[in-house]
């Protein structure tokens, strides 16, 4: 780029930035601001009603108090979340807000002086009034890079993003040579966050060095893993960070077009990304002559049908081309022959969101976080038997124990940890001894799991490992495209065997043949779906083999989860004569009182729905599950 062009870019960006900053300052100037988290997780908990309440009240009272929508802060367990920022106070985050609480917050805090500590989750800054997030044990472990803006800015306002430093990386990048950018990303050690951890800079370099035009950048936002929602959350909360990353990727690789492939089941992500694209275009951050330079780049939002296999890069390209979304053999790599046969980079949403901070702060900055081979942070969606469900971002190398017990606050109800399932259907189940494993791409792979999408499901003593393996296999079997033999038929065969195990059927030799088939499906399948589908089986067999054996040899499910292998039983010495809570609760009238007014379950009639167990008052706790069912004492 010539000096004159560089100067033009700098001038153009300066103007945009100054305007954004002045609008941002004005937003906060001497007035309270209410921010309501209205990403999908917030909406599911009623955030739109809360938003409406604030808006109505502010209007009714004619207050100078902007009420804005922000994205997801990651504390999904406490949705709906609201942040109120009022002069003289630190910004304070409130949780579990409903319209009644919203009205009170407005009356007592916005209009009065009472910050309502009873609803506070934490203040965003340290202060003497209410506890702050930095006092939480998790603050010591969390480090937000790509979730930094999420929940703190309005994703539909490009000015918010720019005022926080957004698009300065693009302006800087345009003054660098594409080769320097590729180099910087290579040096940063950034690895793809779509699962496999392929070095992003290297992928960009392959694409840059391949002839063929136009080149493409595809942002992979298919996110088919049932337990993951971080890509959705980022697009809903901070879409410009992904768009900026894509534009830089385009400039660095010489691409002319970008596609964001997002599943149509994510309507809010689609809507907010589309708004962001329109705004970026209006500000000439996208389109022809970006920031007055000679660089042209357009982004098309593509809504996928939501098939899991379309997350696979070659299937995704086929799907965009209007063909059936089935994978093809590689090589040729996507960077050689990708979308429409042209060199293409496919990167995950998170990978691209890392690019702007890397360009702004330099490669060394990312390298200073994380482990030697996996730089930066990892984002996990915590779910299952864990107190703080939601999104967390921690440096690579943080141990599973720290993530689960410090950041996630452990397992509710005093239950015992059993396993943690990482990486969704392509991942695996890791046992207690793995808790001290520093998490990064390679350590997880060595343990038999996978970073995958970053889903992290915590399992406790009530979760059956055979059933977990069966559950994930049922998913991959259903989502297999059916093109290749091993995945189409192998997953089906394995599922049949696992179904039998959960029914207590099968022979002990079946375990070994299942393991052998699992290894062969891994080795023989065409694409990553089939190659990783056996992981949940292989890891549970590796770490919890005795549970399989118990199912088969003793007809016993140690977690008391597999329905065919348990029976409900009322402990006679715990049952209270005067109580009959369970009798009425049973939908099939299987419970009756005996002569001593002790309740007894007719095992022939019982359908094992478990309502009696829930109905029995906690002071008696007389209903128990027994496995195998033959444990029920005969009269």
């Amino acid at each position, binding site marked *: 780029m010539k000096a004159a062009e560089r100067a033009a870019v700098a001038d153009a960006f300066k103007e945009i930035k100054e305007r954004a900053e002045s609008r941002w300052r004005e937003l906060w100037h001497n007035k309270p601001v209410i921010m309501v988290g209205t990403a999908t997780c917030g909406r599911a908990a009623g955030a739109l009603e809360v938003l409406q309440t604030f808006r109505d009240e502010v209007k009714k009272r004619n207050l100078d108090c902007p009420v804005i929508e922000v994205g997801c802060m990651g504390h999904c367990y406490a949705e709906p979340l609201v942040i109120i920022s009022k002069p003289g106070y630190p910004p304070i985050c409130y949780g579990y807000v409903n319209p009644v609480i919203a009205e009170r917050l407005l009356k007592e805090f916005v209009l009065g002086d009472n910050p309502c500590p009873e609803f506070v989750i934490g203040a965003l800054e340290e202060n003497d009034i209410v506890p702050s997030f930095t006092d939480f044990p998790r603050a010591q472990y969390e480090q937000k890079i790509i979730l930094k803006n999420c929940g703190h800015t309005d994703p539909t306002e490009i000015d918010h993003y720019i005022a926080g430093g957004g698009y300065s990386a693009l302006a800087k990048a345009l003054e660098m040579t594409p080769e320097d950018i590729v180099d910087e990303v290579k040096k940063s050690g950034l690895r793809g966050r779509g699962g496999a951890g392929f070095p992003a800079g290297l992928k960009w370099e392959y694409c840059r060095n391949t002839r063929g035009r136009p080149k493409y950048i595809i942002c992979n936002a298919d996110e088919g893993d049932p337990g993951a929602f971080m890509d959705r959350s980022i697009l809903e909360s901070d879409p410009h960070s992904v768009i900026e990353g894509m534009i830089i990727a385009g400039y660095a690789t010489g691409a002319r077009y970008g596609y964001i492939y997002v599943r149509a089941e994510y309507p809010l992500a689609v809507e907010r990304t589309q708004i962001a694209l329109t705004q970026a275009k209006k500000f000439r951050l996208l389109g022809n002559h970006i920031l007055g330079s000679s660089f042209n780049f357009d982004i098309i939002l593509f809504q996928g049908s939501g*098939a899991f*296999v379309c997350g696979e890069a070659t299937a995704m390209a086929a799907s965009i081309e209007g063909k*059936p979304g*089935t994978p*093809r*053999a590689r*090589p040729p790599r996507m960077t050689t022959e990708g979308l429409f046969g042209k060199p293409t980079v496919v990167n995950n949403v998170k990978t691209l969101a890392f690019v702007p901070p890397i360009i702004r702060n330099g490669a060394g900055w990312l390298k200073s976080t994380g482990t030697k081979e996996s730089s930066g942070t990892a984002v996990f969606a915590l779910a299952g038997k864990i107190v703080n469900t939601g999104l967390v971002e921690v440096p690579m190398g943080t141990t599973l124990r720290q993530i689960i017990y410090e950041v996630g606050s452990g397992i509710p109800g005093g239950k015992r940890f059993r396993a943690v399932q990482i990486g969704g259907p392509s991942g695996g189940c890791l046992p207690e001894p793995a808790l001290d494993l520093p998490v990064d791409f390679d350590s997880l792979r060595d343990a038999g799991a996978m970073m995958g999408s970053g889903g992290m499901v915590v399992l406790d003593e009530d979760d059956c490992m055979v059933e977990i393996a069966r559950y994930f296999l049922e998913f991959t*079997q*259903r*989502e*297999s*495209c*059916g*093109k*290749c*033999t*091993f995945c*189409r*038929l*192998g*997953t*089906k*065969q394995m599922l*049949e065997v696992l179904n039998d195990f959960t029914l207590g059927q099968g022979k002990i030799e079946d375990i070994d*043949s299942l393991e052998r*088939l699992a290894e*062969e499906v891994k*080795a*023989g*399948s*065409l694409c990553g779906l089939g190659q990783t589908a056996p992981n949940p089986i292989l890891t549970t067999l590796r770490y919890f083999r005795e549970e399989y054996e118990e199912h088969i040899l003793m007809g016993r499910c140690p977690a008391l989860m597999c329905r065919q292998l348990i029976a409900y039983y009322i402990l006679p010495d715990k049952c209270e004569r005067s109580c009959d809570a369970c009798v009425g609760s049973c939908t099939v009238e299987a419970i009756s009182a005996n002569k001593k007014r002790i309740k007894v379950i007719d095992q022939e009639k019982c359908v094992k729905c478990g309502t009696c167990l829930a109905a029995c008052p906690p002071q008696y706790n007389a209903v128990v599950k027994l496995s195998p069912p033959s444990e029920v004492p005969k009269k």
Partner: protein
Amino acid sequence: MKSVSLSIDGKKITAKEGTKILRAALENDIYIANLCAIKDKAEPNAACRLCFVEIEGEEEPVTACTREATDGMVVNTRGERALELARTGFELLMASHPVDCANCPANGVCELQKIAKHIGGKLKTKRFRQLLRELPIDDSNPLFTYDPNKCVLCGRCVWVCRQRKETALLGFAHRGFKRVVTTFAGEPIGAERCLDCSACVEVCPTRALAFKGGEKGLGYRGWVV
């Protein structure tokens, strides 16, 4: 164009640069089990997963239809690990194939029989449970019938159909275990759109597509010309 020299099962072979191992082998009369490869189609389907071979210096078997032959490459088509994988793939197919050779029009010309013999796979497998799909047979076409239960989803018929017609009649439908070869919009195979060229019947390795009257005239074609 440059050529490369390699050895397959000890036999010295030269092939054009860029040729896949499978093609190099077949053109030199070395058979490797295959169902989905199509001679005139440059991009491999890579779907049947039967063409595994071993390459000296590489730990894992590779599919011969996707791997380019390179200079100095030493290929073994009879390696135990490769054959083991091929057998598993084959027996998975057979576990979902109604095996009744004596009453099948393909008997004697069936590629599944040929492959079973070549790799030592079983037509009636005991290793896996029988999972049949029990789909209806379509005999609406005057020339041939289509029995989807016998189909191994190699994709040859779909490909030839697309070569002959602007808007192809045959295609794949559904995902996973339910995947089938079907006609456009699921209409009967004898519908107007079919040109009755019967190219699809000629390429079918299993006689899932079979001429009426049971003639076996065409014999084994393998590798589509």
